[in-house]
């Protein structure tokens, strides 16, 4: 008799338990207790400064776990070094997917490096989420539904400069200096698309340089001679510093639009001379923690508290920990939205349905929005002007969404 009673209880319990269990769905890398997140960073090699981003991601997930995890699940963060060499990126991506059984790869860094694994990730149907590069090609849901960017892409940024110029210098003559590769052409296309019909008349000079060139001095002289009064400076840090210095030397004082790639005080402005850089414009999306205007901002305070407790050895004046923190928070938001349906497909679906998400360290008003056809999370920026020792944001939040305007 007792046996039957027990069986009955067990049966009833099972009957009640099973619908609940059926709602929980997992792919490789997720379970009742953990979510496995992979990451690839250049901890060694020529780009090792970026390694800070990976360390910040890890530190933030430690914080999440210490506070109870995501819906009770702890994040296991596995990060590998690729030494900034694409073949190693491929090897590490395969190790993460095939050996460490991660649910997704987060924020792998480098344009060539993400290109190297994009086909693999998409054929394996593993999310390649929030890649750390601004190349516009990483927001192509039609051909690569498993790959998504994060930061403003180069074309969006170009559109934002176009809006600023159209509004404030409608009769400006634009001189462009750009690096002759995909990155430079992306920026140029963004500007032209943003200017629309006026691009032909407003752009008076387009001068390329090669990444292998020793200097861009002659291009600066030619741009001045072209009569341009707006300078669109699409260069990497070394050349940006040269351009700023040379323009000052020859007494050329245009409205100077410096791409955000080189909006670095340490790497560009100081070598070029602080006095030469006053008034330079760029587009911003993150808060600069050293800027005193954010001293009492709750988002910044939270960031400082996180840095003090979970990443005390990190550099609080660098932009990389701000970046890593914001990316990690975006992923946490995605995973929270996933609830108990932790399949790779649902991760992509939730990543593609972020609505007005604020990271806390983005400039006020800049929100993350994605959709099934919009794989570019951040597309808003605010113009910033170099005054004193920092870039100070000013003016409205501008929208550089591809397809807008």
């Amino acid at each position, binding site marked *: 008799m007792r046996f039957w009673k027990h069986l009955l209880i067990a049966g009833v319990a099972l009957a009640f338990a099973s619908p609940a269990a059926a709602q929980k769905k997992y792919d490789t890398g997720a379970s009742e207790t953990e979510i496995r997140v992979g990451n690839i960073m250049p901890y060694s090699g020529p780009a090792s400064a970026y390694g800070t981003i990976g360390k910040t991601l890890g530190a933030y997930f430690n914080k999440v776990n210490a506070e109870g995890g995501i819906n009770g699940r702890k994040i296991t963060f596995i990060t*590998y070094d690729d030494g900034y060499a694409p073949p190693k990126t491929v090897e590490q991506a395969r190790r993460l997917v095939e050996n460490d059984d991660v649910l997704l790869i987060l924020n792998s860094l480098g344009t*060539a490096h993400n290109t*190297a694994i994009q*086909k693999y990730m998409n054929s394996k149907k593993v999310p390649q989420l929030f890649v750390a590069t601004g190349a516009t090609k990483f927001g192509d849901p039609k051909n690569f539904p498993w790959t998504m960017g994060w930061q403003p892409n180069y074309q969006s940024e170009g559109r934002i400069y176009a809006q600023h110029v159209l509004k404030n210098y409608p009769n400006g003559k634009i001189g462009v200096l750009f690096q*002759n590769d995909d990155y430079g052409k992306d920026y140029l296309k963004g500007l032209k698309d943003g200017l629309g019909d006026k691009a032909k008349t407003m752009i008076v000079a387009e001068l390329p340089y090669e990444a292998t060139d020793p200097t861009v001095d002659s291009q600066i002289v030619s741009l001045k001679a072209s009569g341009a009064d707006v300078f669109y400076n699409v260069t990497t840090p070394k050349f940006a510093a040269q351009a700023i210095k040379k323009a000052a030397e020859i007494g050329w004082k245009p409205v100077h639009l410096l791409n955000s790639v080189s909006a670095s005080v340490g790497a560009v402005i100081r070598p070029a001379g602080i006095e030469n850089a006053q008034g330079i414009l760029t587009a911003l999306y993150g808060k600069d923690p050293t800027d005193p205007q954010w001293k009492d901002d709750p988002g910044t305070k939270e960031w400082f508290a996180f840095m003090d407790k979970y990443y005390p050895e990190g550099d609080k004046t660098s932009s990389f920990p701000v970046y890593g923190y914001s990316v990690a928070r975006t992923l946490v938001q995605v995973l929270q939205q996933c609830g108990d349906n932790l399949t790779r497909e649902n991760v992509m679906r939730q990543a593609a349905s972020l609505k007005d998400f604020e990271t806390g360290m983005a400039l006020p008003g800049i929100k993350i929005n994605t959709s099934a056809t919009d794989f570019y999370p951040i597309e808003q920026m605010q113009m910033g002007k170099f005054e004193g020792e920092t870039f100070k944001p000013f003016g409205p939040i501008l929208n550089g969404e591809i397809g807008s305007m």
Partner: protein
Amino acid sequence: MLVRPETREPPVYAVGGIPLAQWRLILLGLGLVVACVVPFALKNFYIFQITLAIIYAIAILGLNLLTGFNGQFSLGHSAFYAIGAYTAAIMMENLGINYVWTLPAAAVVCFVFGFLFGLPALRLEGIYLALATFALAIAIPQALKSTVVEHWTGGVQGIVIIKPDAPFGLPLNSDQWLYVLTVVVAIVMYVCAANLVQSRTGRALIAIRDHPVAASAMGINVSLYKSLTFGVSALYTGVAGALGAIAIAFVAPDSFTFVLAVALFVGLVVGGVASIPGTLVGGLFVLFVPNIAESVSKGLAGAVYGVILLLVIYLMPSGAAGLARLVTAKLMQRR
């Protein structure tokens, strides 16, 4: 009746009662068995890693022919590796040619390039040659980005390749098939290298390494042999580069920096200078030791790698091949 002249038996070197020559065959057979088991016993990821290790071993073999057997230094073999890789990538993606044909093409292109580079390099000896090849390693990644060739090389972005599937409906996935292809190519290339080194030509190469003046006095055309060795060495490394490009399914200038040249050089020294089987150890070292170093400490991976390298050099000063010789000698003494 046949009367044989009295001959003294040559001494038979043996370990455990089995002559060394037979040991060599046994080990070779064991190696082949392991090579056949690998694609069916391991996860795809490990098959992929071992494929890469064998590819590096072929590249190191090329470097060894030049440095180990002919005594010419090179810190620029990443350049030949890159040329081989780009030859394969451009043929497959831009010209739509089957990947199998890219291997002989890479071989020819790299041989010609290596031979031509070897001609002016003849004037340089030792460290000066090392410096000249170093310049080549630095120049090639930059040259690949230049606008002149960008249409073909894809510039900074590189070229994405489609990974080939197994032909003839063989029941293998693409990792297994690439492993098989790589092993077959490797066997052919190792047999050729072994034959080359043991031939008249091989003896000439070694003579040039040991004493160029004496070699020249014996009628060896030193400059011709040196340039040819440069060509053959580049050929080996170029074929490895082509295989590497197919296995990784992507080429970009950042893949072939000076770091790769140094890695090949490290593999050469660790495996054993002038040892053909040693290059396999070198290939495994190049691929796996950085991973081991990283698993010990992420922040200090470079330092850990350095310590491992120092230990290896300290414990086996003449590489894995030297260690193997030492162990055999010890075992023979014990008998």
